[in-house]
């Protein structure tokens, strides 16, 4: 607007531009105020606790606070040979304090995460300590158990000195920080987590592929059949979608058991003998079959909603221009369904990668995923910081896919039912 033009004023004499901006701002605030309650609720009960997981996964002040004198004395120790007398004395005083406060069990658990074998020697020390004499603690502690004379254990204690640690993340990748502060891999027979991560990716990937291969034909059929038939068939997709996950898993447990119907059928058609019915549950097969069936509706629905919008005349045009039905399908129809394929595959992959219930029930030992490991550490070993670290690694992966999904499909385009 050039300055010579007379400013347009509203009835109360304020320039229109200012007045409009004011109204816009008011509307913005109004809209935001409507969203605010839910946003605030989610931030407090959900987003913030996830942040706390991050904090928990790196927080290592527990041991630092339990052994303040020891770590102070250890500052001067280079970690090459056994620590000097002052360190032993400081450790004795710290530990004595913990024994008096009856919190020494926590220290044993924490140090045992760092190096196996701490639990028993700390217990032994606690029993023998009552008879300790003043002075020369180094000798007395070393006499309790030969491991106390092993420099490795003292290095393990020193490693817990900093307030922040990323050792849990290394542990989740089957790595650790060795004595020289270098990152190295754990011995081959103990690399459990990497197998789990790879298996999670593998199962999520193949379940997505299987779902896609099965969903594409039926979504196409549903989209091209006349309404009255497709509505009926749609129930076959929607009923499993609305049915409880546990009910569906239970039905697979019945079907796949060794005396179950699927095995009966295999014996009946002569595929396998009566004597050697295959194990189809409590292994990877069970996880694959059950997860594919459970996640299939999540692939069918986005594909269907995209296919529904493709006009049948396009295929006819393709054919009339000389394409065989296969060429017409491949060159005309298939490219148009790609948005639906993207949406469905990303959704199924995201859901599959974090699956917990079904693998836990039908997966056995060889069919469990990383989620099961997280639950195991939350409920059984109570190593919550390790569970948090693994959870956040999984979350990062999911958020990356979510971000791609948001870019490609847009979260506001998710269709339900």
């Amino acid at each position: 607007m050039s300055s010579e033009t007379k400013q347009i004023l509203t009835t109360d004499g304020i320039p229109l531009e200012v007045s409009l901006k004011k109204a816009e701002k008011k509307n913005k605030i109004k809209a935001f105020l409507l969203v605010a309650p839910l946003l605030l609720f989610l931030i407090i009960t959900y987003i913030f606790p996830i942040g706390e997981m991050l904090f928990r996964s790196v927080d290592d002040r527990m041991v630092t606070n339990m052994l303040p004198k020891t770590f102070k004395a250890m500052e001067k120790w280079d970690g090459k040979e056994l620590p000097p007398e002052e360190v032993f004395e400081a450790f004795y005083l710290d530990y004595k304090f913990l024994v008096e406060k009856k919190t020494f069990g926590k220290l044993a658990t924490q140090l045992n995460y760092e190096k196996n074998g701490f639990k028993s020697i700390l217990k032994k020390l606690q029993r023998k300590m009552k008879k300790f004499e003043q002075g020369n603690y180094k000798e007395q502690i070393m006499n309790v158990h030969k491991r106390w004379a092993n420099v490795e254990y003292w290095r393990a204690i020193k490693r817990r000195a900093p307030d922040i640690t990323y050792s849990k993340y290394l542990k989740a990748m089957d790595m650790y920080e060795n004595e020289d502060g270098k990152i190295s891999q754990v011995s081959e027979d103990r690399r459990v987590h990497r197998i789990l991560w790879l298996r999670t990716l593998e199962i999520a990937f193949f379940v997505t592929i299987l779902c896609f291969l099965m969903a594409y034909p039926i979504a196409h059929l549903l989209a091209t059949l006349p309404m009255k038939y497709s509505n009926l068939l749609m129930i076959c997709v929607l009923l499993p979608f609305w049915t409880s996950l546990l009910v569906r898993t239970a039905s697979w447990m019945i079907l796949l058991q060794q005396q179950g119907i699927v095995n009966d059928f295999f014996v009946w058609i002569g595929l396998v003998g009566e004597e050697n019915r295959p194990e189809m549950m409590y292994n990877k097969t069970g996880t694959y079959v059950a997860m594919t069936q459970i996640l299939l509706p999540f692939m069918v629905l986005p594909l269907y909603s995209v296919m529904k919008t493709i006009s049948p005349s396009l295929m006819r045009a393709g054919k009339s221009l000389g394409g065989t039905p296969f060429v017409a399908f491949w060159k005309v129809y298939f490219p148009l369904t790609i948005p639906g394929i993207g949406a469905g595959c990303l959704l199924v992959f995201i859901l599959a990668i974090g699956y917990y219930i079904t693998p836990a029930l039908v997966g056995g030992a060889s069919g469990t995923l990383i989620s099961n490991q997280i639950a195991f550490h939350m409920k059984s070993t109570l190593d919550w910081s390790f569970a948090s670290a693994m959870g956040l690694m999984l979350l990062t992966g999911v958020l990356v896919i979510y971000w791609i999904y948001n870019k490609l499909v847009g979260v506001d385009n998710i269709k339900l039912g």
Partner: protein
Amino acid sequence: MALPKYTETRYRIWHYFYLFICTCVFFFLIAPLFVIFPLSFNAEEFLVFSDGMKRLDPDAFSLRWYKDMIYGTKNPWGLATKNSFIIATFATIGSVILGTVAALGLSSRHMPYKGIIMATLISPMIVPLIISGVAIFFFMAKAGLAATHTGIILAHIVLGTPFVVITVTATLSGFDHSVTRAASSLGSDPVNTFMKITLPLILPGVISGGLFAFVTSFDEVVVVLFLAGLDNTTIPIQMWTGLREQLSPTILAVATCLIVLSTLILVTAELLRRRSERIRGISR
């Protein structure tokens, strides 16, 4: 889908092959649910079809496991059912209120940072349940709400709101805003306009979002596993425990009831969806 008469044989064969594949997939989807029905009426306690059942002998069928579900000694299902309904009802109410109000704000064209806020509000649906479970558990433990109904209800509101937000924003996307402007020009205040004009029009979307929230809460196991104490056991928790320990026919009786319930919910949701499409068709 009938083929034209001039179709070549190879395409005809291909077409029947395609229909065969589709039939197999539909069978794979729906058949597992129907195994549960007959076995829940089994007179014996094995989870296989007995010879009597194969011969359709009436003596091989009984209501034994349904009786066990309702009157069985020390049976956990009564308490679990009560808890499940209480939790799901309150979680639904909370999700619907918070979600609908937020959806109204999100659908306004004045809403700032719409993309990122929407992504945040939907995130509980995308983030793996195990992570949500761990995070919510940390919060509830700190707030002193672990092993209480309130804690579980709040957790389920978190998990249920994305569904309400999605369905209600979808309904509002076809909403004709001139009706609300007409209402305000006739002197109605915003609350009155919402109750009298907007809500009745978007009600199908709100209810179907509510149904999603209800089902989410009613089926949810992972988060409740972290939060529930002995008094807060729900149907899914009992099923989970039962499935892990021993698969008994009583569980199948419960499962049958759940399938009937989900069928009812499915029918309601479908009717609502069609009604909502009709209303939106008129308002355009």
